[in-house]
């Protein structure tokens, strides 16, 4: 595989470019699954103007990479890519992009979900909302914690 696997960036994510790059990365790709997490215009029913994402540099990359490696051990992936944005993100913009490529669809689908589930609960990122009644830190979702049970 060529190129970086995990990138954390302040810049908008070009999901089309990322999808093309992973397909072109090599191997006999028969399935490409990509997931984009998008900033919604509301948080818990309250309108927001933006999200602000903070991360723990070094640890964030390390946690995501470790779970991408684990996904590669579990499924026959040809390549995988995770791009996570930090800083100020407006509604409609992509917060996170995960793509997995394999010969057949099952591995790519499952590995993408596995990587996202672990990213949500173990990668050190924190969201704060902007423009609501008050600026507030987004609370962790119990459903996200439980999502890991199916991979144990």
């Amino acid at each position: 595989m060529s190129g970086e696997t995990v990138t954390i960036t302040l810049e908008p994510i070009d999901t089309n470019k990322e999808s093309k790059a992973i397909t072109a990365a090599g191997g006999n790709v028969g399935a490409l699954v990509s997931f984009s997490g998008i900033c919604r215009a509301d948080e818990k029913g309250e309108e927001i103007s933006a999200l602000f994402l903070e991360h723990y540099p070094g640890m964030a990359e390390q946690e995501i990479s470790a779970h991408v490696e684990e996904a590669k051990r579990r499924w026959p992936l040809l390549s995988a890519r995770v791009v996570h944005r930090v800083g100020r993100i407006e509604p409609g913009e992509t917060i996170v992009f995960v793509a997995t490529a394999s010969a057949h669809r099952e591995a790519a689908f499952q590995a993408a979900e596995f990587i996202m589930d672990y990213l949500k609960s173990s990668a050190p990122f924190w969201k704060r909302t902007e423009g609501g009644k008050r600026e507030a830190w987004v609370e962790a979702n119990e459903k996200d914690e439980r999502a890991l049970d199916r991979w144990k």
Partner: protein
Amino acid sequence: MKIVYFAWLRERLNKTEEDIEIPASVQTIGELMQWLKSRGEEYEYAFDNPKVIRAAIDKTHVQPGAKIAGANEIAFFPPMTGG
């Protein structure tokens, strides 16, 4: 020892990191949280509910029972909300 804080912990303490001398009697992450809590009003506020606070030693997740001896960097932060 270097301690770093994120999200609302950072805001409540009004600092991103600090270098502090930790007494030898403080040996685990849980004990460190209790000790930090006694350091002043803002610490009491930040560490009010240690159960919800997560920790990492040298950028690896750890449980409250983890020993802090030999650590270079300890991080405290709320549950993560990335993705």
